[in-house]
C-alpha cells in the first residue's frame, strides 16, 4: 500500500488522502453518461470497454428504450461529446483483471488488447449494462418472425433510404403483429417499444398493425400520449392476462389467436380472433451480461437472485455497491428505462464527488477495530465482512500477523464484531478509533 492508505487527523473527522482518478467499467449509454457527468465535475476518467467500440454492443439494446428522440441519434450525440472530451480516456478491447485496495486507493490491473497495464483509481463506476437474447419459436415461416430490434433497424434503414432520395419505402408487410408478454423483467420497455414501432409502421403503411400485450407501459414522459396516438392511428391492441396468444402456421403463413375482450359473441362470451400475420414481432429477453459473475468476483461485489449486481441498499444507496468506492450505474443492477439511467449516472457522479472530491475522504465515525494481541488470524472476519474492509497484515506491536480493518472501507455494520470467535474486534467511535468508547459486546454464536 502506498502513501494514500495512511490516516491523518485534521479538523473534526479523521481524513485519508484519496486518488481523484475514476475508472468507468463499460461503455454504452450508462458508462458514457457517467464519464461525461464526472468530467463535468472536473474528474479524469478512464473508460474500459471490452468491445472495440466505445458505445459497446448497444445497437440491439438501444432499440428497446422507447424515446422521443431516435436512440441512434441520441447515442451519436453523446458519443461525439465524449470523444471530444479531454478528460475521458477510452481503453477499448479492455477488461479488468483484478482490483486491489479500497475506496480512494484502488489498484487495478487492466488487460488492454492483450497488454497488461496497472492503474490507480480513487473510485470505480460499473456500467456493464445488459445483454439481450431471444429464442424464436419454431415455425414453418422463420423469415416472418423478427425481434423488436431487428424490426427497428429495418425501419431505420427504410427511413434512411427514403431520406436520401430513394423511392418511397414499400418494404413493410401488410399485417404486422407484436406479442409482448410480461417476462419477469423489472422494466416494461418492451411494450413501449412495441407501441412506438407500431405507430412508426402505421405512419408508413396502410396495413394492419396488432399489438397483443399484458400491460401497456405508459409510466414515463409522453408515453400515455404515444399510446393514445397508437389507438388513433388505428393500431389494434389486445390485452391478455393468463390466456396467452397462440402462434400457429397455416398454409400461407403465420397466424396468432388471441381473445378479444371487447367483442362479445352472442353466447355472451368474448370471442377468439385469428390474426393472419405477414410479420410477427417478438421482444428479446433482457438479462445481465454473461460475464457478470467473473466481474463480480474481480470486484468482490454481490449478485442478486436474478444475477444482476446487488446494490447496497435499494433506497438509501441505490448506486452504491457493498464496497465503498465501487458504484453501479444503470442496467448492471436492474433493467431500467432510459431517463432513469441518465439520472442515475449523474447521481453516481455526485456520490463519487462527495467521496473523493476534496482529495481526501472523511473516515466513518463508527468503525470496527481489531485488537491484534487477541487475533488468532482465523479469517472469520475477512470472510464475513460484507464490505471487503478486512485485510491481514503484519502487526508491529505483536510481531505477528493479525487482521486489520481498512478504515475507509468500513461501514460500521458490526458483523465482524459479532462473528469474531476471539472477541478481538470492537466498535470504536469518535475521532480516534484507537480510543474506543463503545466496547463491542460479541453476539452469541449463531445469532
Amino acid at each position, binding site marked *: 500500500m502506498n502513501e494514500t492508505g495512511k490516516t491523518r487527523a485534521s479538523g473534526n473527522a479523521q481524513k485519508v488522502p484519496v486518488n481523484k482518478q475514476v475508472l468507468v467499467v463499460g461503455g454504452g449509454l450508462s458508462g458514457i453518461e457517467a464519464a461525461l*457527468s464526472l468530467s*463535468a*465535475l*472536473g474528474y479524469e476518467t478512464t473508460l474500459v470497454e471490452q468491445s472495440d467500440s466505445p458505445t459497446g454492443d448497444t445497437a440491439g439494446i438501444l432499440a428497446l428504450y422507447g*424515446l*422521443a*428522440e431516435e436512440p441512434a441519434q*441520441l447515442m451519436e*450525440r*453523446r458519443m461525439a461529446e465524449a470523444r471530444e472530451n479531454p478528460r475521458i480516456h477510452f481503453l477499448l478491447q479492455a477488461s479488468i483483471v483484478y482490483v486491489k485496495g479500497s475506496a480512494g486507493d484502488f489498484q487495478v490491473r487492466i488487460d488492454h488488447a492483450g497488454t497488461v497495464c496497472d492503474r490507480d483509481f480513487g473510485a470505480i463506476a460499473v456500467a456493464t449494462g445488459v445483454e439481450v437474447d431471444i429464442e424464436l419459436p419454431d415455425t414453418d415461416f422463420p423469415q416472418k418472425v423478427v425481434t423488436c430490434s431487428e424490426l427497428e433497424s429495418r425501419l431505420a434503414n427504410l427511413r434512411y433510404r427514403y431520406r436520401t432520395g430513394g423511392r418511397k419505402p414499400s418494404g413493410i408487410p401488410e399485417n404486422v403483429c407484436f406479442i409482448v408478454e*410480461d417476462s*419477469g*423483467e*423489472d*422494466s*416494461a420497455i418492451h411494450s413501449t417499444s412495441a407501441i412506438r414501432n407500431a405507430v412508426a409502421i402505421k405512419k408508413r403503411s396502410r396495413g394492419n398493425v396488432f399489438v397483443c400485450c399484458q*400491460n*401497456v*407501459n*405508459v*409510466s*414515463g*414522459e409522453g*408515453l*400515455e*400520449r404515444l399510446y*393514445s396516438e397508437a389507438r388513433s392511428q388505428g393500431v389494434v391492441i389486445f*390485452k391478455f*392476462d393468463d390466456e396467452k396468444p397462440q402462434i400457429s402456421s397455416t398454409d400461407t403463413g403465420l397466424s396468432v389467436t388471441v381473445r378479444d*375482450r*371487447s367483442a*362479445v359473441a352472442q353466447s*355472451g*362470451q*368474448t370471442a377468439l380472433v385469428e390474426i393472419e400475420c405477414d410479420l410477427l414481432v417478438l421482444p428479446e429477453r433482457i438479462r445481465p451480461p454473461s460475464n457478470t459473475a467473473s466481474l463480480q468476483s474481480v470486484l468482490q461485489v454481490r449478485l*442478486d437472485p436474478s444475477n444482476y449486481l446487488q446494490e447496497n441498499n*435499494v*433506497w*438509501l444507496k*441505490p448506486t452504491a455497491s457493498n464496497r465503498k468506492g465501487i458504484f453501479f450505474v444503470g442496467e448492471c*443492477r*436492474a433493467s431500467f*428505462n432510459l*431517463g*432513469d439511467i*441518465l*439520472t*442515475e449516472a*449523474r*447521481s453516481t*457522479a*455526485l*456520490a463519487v*464527488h*462527495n467521496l473523493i*472530491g*476534496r482529495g481526501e475522504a472523511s473516515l466513518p465515525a463508527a468503525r470496527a477495530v481489531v485488537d491484534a494481541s487477541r487475533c488468532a488470524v482465523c479469517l472469520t472476519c475477512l470472510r464475513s465482512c460484507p464490505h471487503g474492509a478486512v485485510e491481514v497484515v503484519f502487526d508491529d506491536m505483536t510481531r505477528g500477523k493479525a487482521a486489520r480493518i481498512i478504515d475507509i472501507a468500513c461501514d460500521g455494520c458490526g458483523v465482524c464484531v459479532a462473528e469474531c470467535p476471539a472477541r478481538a474486534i470492537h466498535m470504536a467511535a469518535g475521532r480516534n478509533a484507537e480510543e474506543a468508547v463503545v466496547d463491542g459486546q460479541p453476539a452469541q454464536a449463531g445469532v
Partner: protein
Amino acid sequence: MRQPAVLVVGGGVAGITSALSLAESGLRVHVVERDEDIGGHGAKLCCKATEVCHQCGACIVADKIEGLRSNTGISVMTRTELRRLERNDREFQAHLVRRDNGEDVSLNAVIVATGFAPFDARHKPQFGYKECADVLTGLDLEEQIRATGSVQRSDGRRPRTIAFIQCVGSRDAHIGNNYCSGVCCKYALRMASLLQSRIPDLEVTVFYMDIQIGGKGFYEFYQGCRKRMRFTRAIPTKVAGNGSGTLEVRYEDVERGHLAEETFDMVVLSVGMVPAPDTTDLAQALGVSVNRDGFFSAPDPLEANQTDVEGIFLAGSCHGPKDIEGSIAHAQAAAMRTISFLGTL
C-alpha cells in the same frame, strides 16, 4: 473566497435531498418551505412493510428530514415563499417573504423542488368522494394507517371487502391529465398487501387498466398480489352508498359484456399526481416554462434537471410524477448539475 450559495425552493424529499447533497459538497444552502414544516407529502406516508419490507420508501423520507434538521450548515426557512427572482450578471437576487416580512438573498443557483399536489378526487364526482364516508383516497388511507396502524370503516367496523380504483385523475384526457402518474399501481398494491396482512380474510379487488411494472423486484411482488387479490380490468363508472352502510360499485364487465354491480365495504381511490397549485405563478416569477401537463419543463429530454434558464434546475416531482426513489435520484442529479454549473462561474 466565499462559497457559492444555492437556493432550494421546497422542503419535501427532493428539496431535502438536493440540499443535503449540496451541503456535503461544501456549498452554502438555503431551503425555503411554504408550509409550517419540512417533509412535504412524503412525511405523511405510512410504512407498508408486511413480514418483509416492500420498499415503499416512507422511512427514507423520515431519515432525510432528520438529516436536514441535524445539519446546522443549511439555513431552513419555513412559512417562507419565493416571490421574485432577478438576475444580475452572475448572481440571482431572490425576494423571500415570510409573514409579510420581505428579505433579499443573493444566490448563484436555484433548485426548484416544489413537488406535486394529489389529484382532488372531488373532480370525479362519479366516485362519491366526500359524499360517501367509506370512499377514501390513497393518501387518506396512508394517513389513517400511519395514525392508527390499521384501517376501519366509518362505523368503526373492520372492512371485509375493499376495492381499489386505479388511475383516478391519471390517464384521463377528459380532465386534461393525459399522463400516467406512475406511482399509484405501486402504492395501491403495497397498501392492499399491508391491509391483507393486518386483516387476514380481507378480499381485495383492484380495478385497473394496465399495471405499471417498474423498479427492482416489483414484477415479482405484483405476481404475488395476483394470487391474493382479484384484478379486474375496468374502471368503474359509479360508486354510491346503498343505504345499508356499504358501497355499490358499477363497472363494465368486459368478459361478460354487460354492466356489473358489486358491493364493497370500502373503496380506495388511487389518486394521481398533478402540478402543485401555484406552479404557473412560480414559473413566471422564475422566468421558466411549464410543460403541456403543467409541470415545470425540462425542454431537452436528456437533461431532466435543466430548465430553460441557466442556473435554475429542477428536482423531484415538480418536473413530473415520481416516486420517492425517483425523486431522490432526480434530486441528486439536480445537485450534480448545480455543482457542475457553479464550477463554470
